[in-house]
């Protein structure tokens, strides 16, 4: 027993990991202590763990995403430390493999997506004049399955060992023969559990946006962020089942001995790559389209102009969504599927740059002759445009199949996708968070600190990744843990950039604390002179969002309301509001998913089956639950609104 515990169960032998274990234990004890000392357990359960309120769920998503950004960022810093100088012994090759695997997986699955889904959760119902999402209970299931999936994945780090086959987890390297043990299982099950939640989110938001818009808000009157969320949800709904199957097949390969991606039994390892990228490419658009939506909102608000080319924007997003399913083979041109296959996917890939280019010109057109304010959200959006264009142009270079044989698997590729994912998604998340922060927490983030963090991050970003294009040309392969001496100068530059980015991130997080302590509290709901409906509510937003839902008569609903004197509190037309009840089932059910996943990771079938029974039991409980929610009385609405609107007079 002890032997198993020390040799297999716990990860031993590395001082970095011992340090991490100690800090995990200490932080856990500290959290338990604080909660007990301040008697906050009940508060935590009632207000957060059982909530079905889309605003609170959105905030929890964002908090989790920032924690994951920290973890993924630490991985990145470790990699940069290892790669700065030749012959470094800081990380050995195995440890390095684990670090780049967890970095990629966490940043895509547990940082980028939850951050954007968090913003979608908070903002979309407010933008369309709804009181919650279509299926609030399901929304809570989505969040908690993501949270427990992320927890399972992160556990691998101290218990059992981290996955080490890259975030793409290619077979046969990730198969049972070349990679026995629990590490890859953590990847498979962690992603599987959180993927279920993501799929549910996709369906939920599609129904919400299609069926719960305020009266008069036609599709073409929707704010552009809502449009981007709708299209993203659409992609999620069709792309995530593919991932579900791919993960399940490899899980069955590893645990039950099937022969899908094996080298024996006439299995086909490259089929994994095919299925992975069938999901993986749409996934790229899942994490970029909401960011496009955010930039559009921010640029229009801070240029004080209506979005230029709204219809072109919508159509280009739809076109991107359609094309996103038709380009996946460009991730493995070098497999050698033949000239016909590679040519077709080369062409479809290049086609995607057309609608993307349209959007760039729309943003530029929006700013043209606008009276631009340079607040932090706008700075992130302005920084995005040139940085993203570099990523786009190098993407077209990679799209050429013949040339790709040179770029493939080098640092050129690494530089390319960081240029689109950081400049697109991460800048988008920061822009969105600073933009909607006052609506979430009742105060702005400090402008000065925000600008410091922006400049550190953007300069650091370019210093970090531009040299990598040249390293790629010099032949530095991706996922190598040791560099050649002639690659050293550019790698040193790159590491300096990474440090600057880290400083930018730390300032950003410090800003959250600083603003909480010192920022002026918001008196109105309309912090930035906004244009869409979310700014029509009071700050903080009452749990039912809108006392009365306004009639929408054109695009930019709130802008029009401000001119015509509309309100979301029409005293004479108040009616009791129906709201859904909170429920502990989503949390408990996801906890059972965690148990089942943990059992499968270790191939302890008893534990896995126990977890599965728990999940099914929760579903039965839910099926017999005929709770119709509750009604908020007119008096309570009046009282809440009067109190919230005092400051406005």
């Amino acid at each position, binding site marked *: 027993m002890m032997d198993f515990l020390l040799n297999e169960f716990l990860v031993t032998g590395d001082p970095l990991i011992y340090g991490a274990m100690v800090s995990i234990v200490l932080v856990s004890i500290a959290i338990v202590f604080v909660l007990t000392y301040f008697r906050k357990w009940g508060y935590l359960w009632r207000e957060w763990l059982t909530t079905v309120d889309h605003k609170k769920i959105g905030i929890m998503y964002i908090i989790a995403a920032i924690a994951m950004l920290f973890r993924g960022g630490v991985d990145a810093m470790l990699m940069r430390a290892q790669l700065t100088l030749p012959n470094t012994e800081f990380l050995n090759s195995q440890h390095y493999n684990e670090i780049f695997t967890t970095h990629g997986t966490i940043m895509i699955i547990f940082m980028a997506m939850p951050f954007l889904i968090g913003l979608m959760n908070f903002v979309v119902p407010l933008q369309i004049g709804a009181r919650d999402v279509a299926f609030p209970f399901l929304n809570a299931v989505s969040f908690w399955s993501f949270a427990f999936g992320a927890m399972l994945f992160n556990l691998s780090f101290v218990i059992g060992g981290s996955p080490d086959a890259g975030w793409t987890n290619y077979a046969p390297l990730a198969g049972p023969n070349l990679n026995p043990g629990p590490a890859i299982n953590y990847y498979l099950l962690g992603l599987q559990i959180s993927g279920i939640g993501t799929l549910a989110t996709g369906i939920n938001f599609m129904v919400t946006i*299609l069926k719960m818009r305020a009266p008069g808000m036609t599709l073409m009157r929707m704010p552009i962020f809502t449009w981007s969320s709708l299209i993203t949800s659409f992609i999620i709904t*069709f792309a995530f089942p*593919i991932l579900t199957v791919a993960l399940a097949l490899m899980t069955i390969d590893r645990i039950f001995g099937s022969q899908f991606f094996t080298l024996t039994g006439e299995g086909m390892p490259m089929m994994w790559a095919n299925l992975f990228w*069938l999901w993986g490419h749409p996934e790229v658009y899942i994490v970029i389209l909401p960011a496009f939506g955010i930039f559009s909102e921010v640029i229009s608000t801070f240029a004080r102009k209506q979005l230029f080319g709204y219809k072109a924007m919508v159509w280009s997003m739809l076109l991107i969504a359609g094309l996103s399913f038709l380009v996946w083979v460009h991730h493995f041109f070098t497999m050698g599927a033949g000239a016909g296959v590679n040519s077709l996917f080369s062409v479809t890939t290049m086609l995607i740059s057309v609608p993307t280019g349209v959007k760039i010109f729309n943003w530029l057109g929006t700013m043209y002759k606008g009276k631009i304010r340079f607040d932090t959200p706008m700075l992130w959006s302005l920084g995005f445009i040139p940085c993203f264009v570099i990523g786009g142009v190098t993407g077209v270079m990679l799209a050429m199949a013949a040339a790709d044989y040179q770029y493939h698997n080098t640092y050129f590729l690494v530089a390319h996708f960081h240029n689109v994912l950081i400049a697109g998604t991460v800048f988008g998340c920061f822009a969105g968070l600073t933009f909607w922060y006052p609506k979430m927490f009742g105060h702005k983030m400090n402008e000065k600190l925000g600008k410091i963090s922006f400049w550190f991050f953007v300069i650091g970003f370019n210093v970090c990744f531009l040299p990598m294009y040249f390293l790629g040309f010099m032949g530095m392969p991706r996922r190598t843990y040791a560099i050649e001496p002639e690659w050293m100068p550019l790698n040193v530059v790159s590491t300096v950039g990474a440090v600057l980015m880290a400083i930018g991130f730390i300032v950003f997080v410090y800003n959250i604390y600083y603003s909480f302590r010192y920022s002026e509290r918001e008196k109105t709901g309309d912090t930035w002179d906004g244009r869409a409906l979310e700014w029509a509510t009071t700050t903080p937003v009452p749990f039912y969002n809108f006392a009365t839902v306004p009639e929408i008569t054109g695009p930019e609903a709130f802008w029009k309301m401000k001119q015509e004197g509309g309100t979301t509190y029409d005293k004479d037309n108040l009616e009791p509001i129906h709201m859904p009840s909170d429920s502990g089932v989503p949390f408990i059910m996801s906890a059972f998913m965690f148990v089942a996943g943990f059992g499968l990771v270790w191939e302890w079938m008893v534990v896995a089956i126990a977890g599965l029974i728990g999940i099914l039991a929760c579903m039965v409980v839910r099926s017999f639950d005929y709770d119709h929610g509750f009604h908020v009385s007119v008096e309570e609405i009046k009282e809440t609104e009067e109190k919230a609107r005092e400051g406005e007079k």
Partner: protein
Amino acid sequence: MSAENEKFPKQHIVGFLGSLVLTLAAAWAVVGSGLPTHWIIISIMVMAVVQAFIQLFMFMHLTEKNGSIQVGNMLHAFFIAAVIIAGSVWTMSFGFSHNHSDNGGGGEEMQMEEQEHNH
């Protein structure tokens, strides 16, 4: 809605009989028609699609309430399904030679052709 309150579920019975006929026709195409293999495959796939539409429209009331969204979503789902299946087969059909094949040494061209016929 008046049709729904009838005692006799005409639409369902027509759909059911149609499905039975199509299933038997497909089985006959395989066992007794003697058509060339690729014609058999094309004809039975077409019959399967027709049957699927019978289910969707006659049994599942696809066009009710949010009809346009539901029909659009289903059509898109079929499109995605076609992309996944045809795309995977096309992309992955290269250089495979399995033990049971008589023309194992027949080179890649032959194999690719055979793969295409298989599916």
